[in-house]
Structure formats: C-alpha cells, structure tokens
C-alpha cells in the first residue's frame, strides 16, 4: 500500500501545486486544500502503513500483534484540524478581497 500511496501523494502534490499557480481565487484555495491533504498522507506514509489494524488495545489493555503506528496518526489529526482553520481563514480572506472593487483575479492583488 505504501507504493500506491507514494504515487498518489506525488499526484496530489502535483495537482495542488498546479492549482496554486492558478490566477483564479477558487482554484488557488483548492490548491491549498489539496496540498494540505497531500501533506497529511505524506506524513502518514512516512510513518509506514499497517493494514486494517487500528492502534487500539483490547479489553485487558493488551496491544494486538500488529497495529498501525499511532504517533503519525496523532500528529496528522491535529494538523488536519489546524489546516481546516487555516483554509477557512484563507477563504474568508479571499472573500473579503473580493469585496474590494476591481479585484477579479489573483493578479489584480498587485494593484
């Protein structure tokens, strides 16, 4: 699964950067969102992947034989929520920018 996910992460990054270089606001923010997601998966893959066994202990508090690494999961979980905050902030900022007359695309910010 790491092999597949590595390729997928690369594709996500490529798509994200491509959108980031766009002149359109909406696409730009989409790029930010995709890069955020891609980063999460990047960290996840770097922490190695164990299929279908979540890091939970059984009733007696004993760990199963194999289970996914909880550390990157904990890292990503908070990162995702923070990423959400940042994305929302960016979106609102862009909305505010649009309230200014004469601004229709990213390039107009130069004015």
């Amino acid at each position, binding site marked *: 699964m790491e092999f597949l996910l590595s390729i997928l992460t690369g594709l996500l990054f490529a798509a994200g950067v491509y959108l980031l270089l766009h002149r359109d606001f909406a696409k730009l923010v989409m790029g930010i969102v995709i890069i955020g997601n891609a980063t999460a998966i990047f960290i996840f893959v770097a922490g190695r992947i164990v299929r279908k066994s*979540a890091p*939970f202990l059984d009733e007696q508090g004993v760990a199963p034989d194999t289970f996914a690494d909880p550390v990157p999961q904990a890292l990503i*979980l*908070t990162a995702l*929520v923070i990423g*959400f*905050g940042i994305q*929302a*902030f960016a979106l*609102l900022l862009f*909305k505010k920018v649009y309230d200014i007359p004469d601004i229709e695309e990213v390039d107009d910010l130069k004015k």
Partner: protein
Amino acid sequence: MKSFILIISARVIVPVMLIFSVFLLFRGHNLPGGGFIGGLTAGAAFVLHAFAFGMESTFKALRIRPVKIIAIGLLLSFLSGVIGLVTGEGLFKGYWLDWDVSFLPKLGSPFLFDVGVYVLVMGIVMVIIFPNIQEDS
C-alpha cells in the same frame, strides 16, 4: 432559502448529531472518537441548525456567542492541566477519579482536556462558518 424538507429533517438530525457527538467524545478514550471528532460533529450540527432555521434562532438556542465557547473550551483544557499543578505532580500530569460509571469513560484530567477540546472545536467550526451564512439571511 428556508426549505421545508431541510427544516423537518433538521429537527430530527440536529439532536441526533449532538447526542452522537457527545457519544463520540465519551468513547474517544478507548475507541475511535474524541474531542476533535466530537467537536467537529457538534459544530456541524449547529451549522445544519443555522442552515435550516436561520442564524437568529441558532443564536437564540445557543444563548452564548461562539467566541465565548472557544474561550470556555480553552479554559477547560487549561484547567485540566492546572489539576496536576494543584496536586503537586506538575502541569498536565494525569489525575484520575476513583469511581467508575459504566457509560462514562474513566474520569480524570485527560478526559476534562478532551471535553475542552470538544467545546473549543465546536466553537471554532461555528466561528468559521457562521459569518459566511450570515449575509444571506
């Protein structure tokens, strides 16, 4: 933009979502769930409420401004850290109560922290999304 279907379904879904979010929070210590997930769910429930009934009624139902909710959440989390300080173990050192309630997780400072996260994330979802709805109604 009030839709009849939305209102009827929201009446059922919002309370269910809220209860489910609390359920997620409670079981978070042992099974998937926790403060972040629960808070997001609860926030989403209020957002749905606002969609269906309009912002005004949501604020009326909340009785408290979302920014204050964030503050309360942060305060709760911080207090959970102070508990350790009071018992002399050090900031954020875990402290558990002795008694167990079957449907509750093990009560203690980490749980309080999780509750704080829950409240905070709920408030954040509202603060972030509400201004976008506001201008429509």
